[in-house]
Every structure is written in C-alpha cells, then in structure tokens.
C-alpha cells in the first residue's frame, strides 16, 4: 500500500517557494487589475454592457471552446491511431504530427490567405487554430498510451466489447489526464491568440484589446477586456482540475499494433497527416508562392539572419530554463499534496496564460520601470516575460512527471540516509527530468514564435526571427520575409521533433 498524495500538510518552504512563483507570474494580472480600477465603476459597467463587448466575449468563448474540443478529439484520435495501427513509418509520423507546433499562428493564417484571399470568419479560424494546436493533445496522449498496457483492452475485447468501446471504457480513463491537460493549454492559447484571428478578421476580445490600445489609446478599457479574459480562464482552469483525474502509474507493457486493411490504413494516414498539411505545408507553400511572385528578390543578409537566429535560440533556451525553475516548486507542490490552497495556487499559475502578449508586455514595462529601471529593455526582463507568458506550458508536464515518480523510491532513498532535498535531487529529479524536459521544450517553441511582448521588451537593436519576420511583412516585403519565416519554422521544428522523440526515451527508461 503506497500513499501517493498525502493528507498531511505540505512543508512550509515548498509552499513559500510556490507562492513566490505564483506572485512572479501574476504580475500581468496585477497590472490588469491596476489599470482596470482606474476607471470609475459606472464606466466599468458601461464597457461591459456594450453589445459589442458581449459579442466579442461570445466570439472568444465560442472559438476557444470549439478549438479546445476539436483539438481534444482529433488529438486523441491521432494519438490512438499512431499507437495502435501498424504504420510503416510510425516514428516519423509521430515526428511529423508534432510539426504544427513550430508554426506561429499568424504565419499559418498568412499562408492560407495567400491561397484563399477571401478567407475569414469563425470556421477558418477554428480549423486553422485546431490544426496548429492539436499537437498539444497528441503528444502527451501518445506518450500516455505508450505507458498503458493494451492488455486491458484485450481483456475487454474477449468480454465482447468492440474495439472502439474497449478503447473508450478501458484506455481512455488512463489517458484522460494527459488529454484534458493538453486541451486546457489549447483553450488558453486560443483565448490569448491575436495574430491569426486578426488576419482572418474574426473579432475576439484580444482584437478588442488591440483596438483599445491602437485606436483609442485607452489602456483602462483594454484592461477591462483583459479582465474578462482572465475570468473566462479562471472558470475553465478550475473546471479542468476537476475533470483531470488522477495520474496512474502503471507498468508499461508495449501495446500490440493491429494490422489493418489498406483502406483503413490510408484513412488513418490522412487523419494523422491532416494537421501538418493544413498547419505547416499549406502556409509554407503560400509563403513560397509569394516569394516566387516577387519581382525583386532581395539578397539575404546572412549575418543578420544568423544574429536573429542566434538571439532566438539563446532567448528561448533561457526562457525555457527560467520557466522551468519557476514552475518547479508549484509542480512539486501540486504533485504530492492536495488541498484547496494547493489547488488555488495551481490555478493562479495558469491564469496569466490567457492574456495576449501585448498585455503581458506592457505589464512588464510598467513593472520593470517601477521596480528595477536599469533592467528595463534588457534581455533579463525579456526572458522573464517569456517565462511568465509560457510557464503554464511547463507546469502541467512538470506536475505529472513528478507525480509519476513513485513515492516509494523517495522513501527508500531516505531510509538509506539521504536528507529530503538530497533524496529529491538524486531520485525524483532525474526520473522526472524527461517530463521536465518536455515542458521546457514547449516553452522554448512558444518563445521562438512570440511577437508582441518581444517587440515591446527586447533590447533596442536586438531582433529575433519573429520580429524580423514582422518588420518585413508589415513593410510589405514578402520576398525578404520568406527566409526568416522558413528559418523560424525550421528552428522551432527542432524542439518539436525532439519532443516527439524525448517522450519515447522517457517511457522506455521508466
């Protein structure tokens, strides 16, 4: 009998560190509230009552829920197909399915607009966002499936259940936590996305925020809308925690792959390849078409490209590290201890993820100038902004990877003479490392693609691939933009591919 989650109280130092993490990440929230309370209550309610605001809220909610749901379903289906159907190039397929992560949403929409210029509205936004975010569900579910035994399903089949039913009744409960956590990330991503919906002219709350800044220079109005986003996020994050279920550590027995007929295999292949085709191939093709159209092909300034690439890689690596460090106490707390306080802390850690980059960026302009002016517009604050923005991406995987380390192992280490911290460092950390690495990679990828906060906070003169891409496209130089877009996707594809690979080794080691 092993006790996985203790009813005993968490040690104070861990709670303290977690509080510190949450406070750091809540800086944008504080800013939003600060600006929102600048307005008198009457104006507050006026803004909220405006029919347009309600329309934007409905749009935002509708789109986010739709994308989260479709990503959930599609992600689980693809992961199931990848693990249970015998494909010839199964490993490569998993790799390819991770690629949409590498494409920034604004790039995806841009590429499609080249192909279908009139593209706009809810449906294209929904479909495109699904294609780009589905790996957030596919990858963890595929990993979870690798850790489950197919024996349960086999037993269910002998009891008369069809394959679909067997999957739903037996295997789904085991992968549910991973799937739901991934869907949560998709929801928050969609909530905060601006680039894609702006280009596809689907008006959401993020669009409203942008308008408040750009047209009216009204930061308080922007803050009120941002608060709306936070409230939505709060409800959903809380709901996810109850839907999550418990992580099951089971002995991994490799699942058998079923041989299927050609028709089924082709269909399965199409489903698996759909997101990469829609989210990667089509946009890049669109950009390529633009490139060909251009009459003046500007020369590629390789040193500039190199600098931007270097800066992008450096800054994402640092951001991944910082995000992980911030996430770690919170993840450790949530993994081993239960209770309402723990739950609230974890929820707070997720909320800032709902805010669009411009809000987080401005909040840190405000904060760094108020607290540490010499650090303003330095790499330090920029990296910190990324960590704040993307920490939730690391939080979920960090938590479940720590949860997955049996407490028995730590207990044994302690009876062998290791003090608590030493036991943690020598046993839990190495075993949780693959999972932590996944979180870090997710943060790195997101950082590479980030634009609005980067524009606000980067040291003057420093450019990332994303900002270079932006400066060229906003000036209409699509030919000049193409190499940066290509390199950006390439560079971001590397961690995406590692992601699909790391999971494999992680499971085998365990």
């Amino acid at each position: 009998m092993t006790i996985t989650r203790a009813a005993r109280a968490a040690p104070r130092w861990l709670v303290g560190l977690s509080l510190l993490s949450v406070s750091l990440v809540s800086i944008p929230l504080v800013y939003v509230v600060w600006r929102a309370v600048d307005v008198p209550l009457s104006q507050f309610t006026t803004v909220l009552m405006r029919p347009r605001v309600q329309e934007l809220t409905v749009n935002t909610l509708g789109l986010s829920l739709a994308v989260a749901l479709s990503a959930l379903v599609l992600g689980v289906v693809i992961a199931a197909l990848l693990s249970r159907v015998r494909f010839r190039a199964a490993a490569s397929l998993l790799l390819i399915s991770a690629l949409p992560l590498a494409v920034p949403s604004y790039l995806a929409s841009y590429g499609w607009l080249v192909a279908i210029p009139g593209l706009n509205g809810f449906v294209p936004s929904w479909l495109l966002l699904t294609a780009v975010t589905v790996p957030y569900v596919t990858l963890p579910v595929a990993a979870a499936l690798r850790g489950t035994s197919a024996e349960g399903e086999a037993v269910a089949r002998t009891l008369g259940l069809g394959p679909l039913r067997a999957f739903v009744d037996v295997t789904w409960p085991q992968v549910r936590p991973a799937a739901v956590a991934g869907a949560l990330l998709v929801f928050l991503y969609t909530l905060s996305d601006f680039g894609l919906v702006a280009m596809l002219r689907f008006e959401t709350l993020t669009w409203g925020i942008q308008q408040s800044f750009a047209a009216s220079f009204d930061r308080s109005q922007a803050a009120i809308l941002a608060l709306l986003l936070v409230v939505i996020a709060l409800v959903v994050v809380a709901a996810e925690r109850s839907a999550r279920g418990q992580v099951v550590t089971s002995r991994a027995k490799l699942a058998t792959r079923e041989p299927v007929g050609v028709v089924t295999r082709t269909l399965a292949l199409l489903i698996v390849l759909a997101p990469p085709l829609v989210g990667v191939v089509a946009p890049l093709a669109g950009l390529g078409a633009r490139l060909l159209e251009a009459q003046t092909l500007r020369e590629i300034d390789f040193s500039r490209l190199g600098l931007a690439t270097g800066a992008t890689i450096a800054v994402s690596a640092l951001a991944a590290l910082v995000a992980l460090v911030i996430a770690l106490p919170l993840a450790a707390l949530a993994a081993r201890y239960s209770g309402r306080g723990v739950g609230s802390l974890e929820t707070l850690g997720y909320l800032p993820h709902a805010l669009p980059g411009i809000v987080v960026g401005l909040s840190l302009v405000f904060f760094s100038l108020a607290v540490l002016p010499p650090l303003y517009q330095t790499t330090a604050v920029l990296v910190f902004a990324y960590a704040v923005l993307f920490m939730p991406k690391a939080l979920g995987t960090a938590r479940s990877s720590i949860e997955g380390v049996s407490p028995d192992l730590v207990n044994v280490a302690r009876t062998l003479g290791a003090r608590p911290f030493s036991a943690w460092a020598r046993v839990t950390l190495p075993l949780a490392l693959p999972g932590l690495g996944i979180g870090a990679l997710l943060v790195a990828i997101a950082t590479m693609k980030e634009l609005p906060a980067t524009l606000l906070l980067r040291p003057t003169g420093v450019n990332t691939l994303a900002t270079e891409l932006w400066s060229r496209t906003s000036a209409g130089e699509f030919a000049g933009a193409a190499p940066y877009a290509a390199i950006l996707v390439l560079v971001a594809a590397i961690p995406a591919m590692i992601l699909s690979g790391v999971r494999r080794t992680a499971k085998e080691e365990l």
Partner: protein
Amino acid sequence: MTTLGVHNVGLTYGSRTALKDVSLEIPSGSLVAILGPSGCGKTSLLMAIAGLLGIDEGVITAGNRELSRSGKRVPPEQRGIGWVPQEASLFPHLSVRDNIGFGLRKGRRRNERVEELAALVGLGGFLDRSPGQLSGGQAQRVALARALAPSPDVLLLDEPYGALDSVLRHTLARDVARILREEETTAVLVTHDREEALDLADVVVVMDGGRIVQVGTPVEVYESPATPWVASFVGDTVELAGVWRHGTLQCEQCGAADFCEPGDNRPGCSGHVVCALGEVAATAQGYQPVDGEDVRVVVRPEWLAPGSSGIPATVRGVSYAGHDALVEFDMEGQKERVRARIAAPFLPSVGQAFQLTLRHPALVFPLPSGVELA
C-alpha cells in the same frame, strides 16, 4: 545494538484508524515476523518504525533514544533503519552497482562494500546491469543488498517475496534469513504468508484491524493461538461445537482436581470437552470455562489420526499435496465434518472407513459474543 520498542502506538489517516494501541518489543538481533491479512496495518507499522510516517499516539524507541512521538519525529535518514519495500523499488535510472551503493559515502571503501554485498546476495556479476534487466527475484536481492549496505541496526522488509513464485520465494526467504543472522541485523519482516513467518521468525506478531492480536514464538502462536481467528490464520483448523467438562481430571499444571484458575504463563485450564470427536482432552485458551458451558473447539488436522480405535468415519474427499493429503471425513452420527492431515505415502480413497482419534488436546475458546475478540 538496542532493542526497538513500540509503545501504545496509534496512527490515523483522516477517518481511518491504521494502528490502535500497538505495543511491541523487538529484541536486538532477532527476526520478527508481522503476520496478518491485507489492510491490517502491518505496512503502516513498518513505515512508522522507519520514520516515513508520523504517529498520533504513543512512542517508538530504540534503546533509550526516542524515535517517534506524536508531533515529533526523528527523520528517516537519521534512524539507521533500512527498508526493503514491497516491490523492490530499485532506482530505475541507476545501475545495480549504484543502487547498492546509494546509501554509502563515496570512496574506495564504497566499491569494496558494494561488491561484498553483491556477492553476499549472489549477484556478483550483475553490478553493471540496469534494474530493467533483472528478474523479480534478482531485483529483490539487489534491494536487500542496497538496504544492508549502510549496515543498518534494523532492517524492515515489507512482503519482499510477494511477487515471486513459491519455489524461488522459499529459497530466497531462507537465504535472506541466513544473511540477516550472519550480519546480526535485527529484522522485522511483514508477511501474509504463514509458512514463511513460522519458518523464519524468532517472534511472530499477529495483527488484525490495526491491533496486535498475539505475540509469541512460532510454536506458541501455532500451538496456543489466542483466538480461533489466529488459529485459522496461522494454520489449518477444524472447528467444532463442544461442551466443557472439568473436574474429571487432575490439572497437570496446578494440581487442582476440581477447579483451577488460568495463570500468568498458562494459556488456560486443562480439562475435557465433549464434541463430535467424543470426550477429548482440551485446554481452554486464556480463560476458565464453567462446567457444562457451550464452547468452540478448534483442532488442527494433523492432530487427527486414523487408528484402530476412535470415532468411526468415512472418507468423503481427498486434497492431495504430495507430501501429505488433507482428507475430509464424515463421522458416524455427526453432522460436522472434519479434516485430517494424513502423511504420505498413505493415501486414502473416497469411501474408505477409518477410526479417528485425537492425539493432542483440543483448543477451547468461548463462543463469540457478537464482537470478535481481538
């Protein structure tokens, strides 16, 4: 080497009481088996001794040193108490060598000690393997070596042979007991396997529902169980209804002819009981029954022997085990059936008639009074 003492220890999880008023003395160098069904609290007790769980009531001591008390606890890493958990729990990211050496300080002596222990458990050539490459039995042996490496005063083993097949289990258990004796390590072994407990332990502690039911040597626990439940837990039993008769025989122990009190060292009074097997000698366990009182009679199958005289009985079923057979008998004129253990190569067949006699005083217990005596 000191005596490990558990004094009136209580432990509660939320609403569930895991341990209640548990007291135990574990003499230095002995091997104590804690025997009981699942959920009886044995693992909780072990973890409390190891310091992995705190206790709510009572005290745990090692010699004069206090280890655990409500609200205060010496951390596990400072107790010098080793622990072999139920499922080996080897560190998957470390080699066998590094697993065994985990609790040792770095240095040349570490390597020597690791190799010494690996040889001790018979895995000298496995040092560079990874845990995933070991079989269940090998993993358990590594876990044992790992726990022994820092030379702990006490070693706690939580059902360490649970996952192994019976042959391997038996040999491994004996090997381990031998190693522990050689190392003069005090050991507490938790098991639900009675044969293991009886074979290896110096002291057997029987637990149920978070409480200790009986403590004694294997012989004491087997031959003089405190309750019918203990009796059936540590061995096969045959239960019969009976009526107590006393006074017809001199009490061998106290000399009284008519009536005697149970004494400090006597489980109870000797006398006779009338049951399906006739009027047979019996000892009352832990109490003094009144003449004519209805009692529960417990008899072990090996105490029944087919002979030339006794109760006539007919064979109704045979459970063959190779070295003996558990034979079920119908007795003439009786509703209750009995089982007798009959040694090989004598193998009766169904329908055969025998005469059964009881070669050992029966055990007599009071009737249950609604609440199970624990």
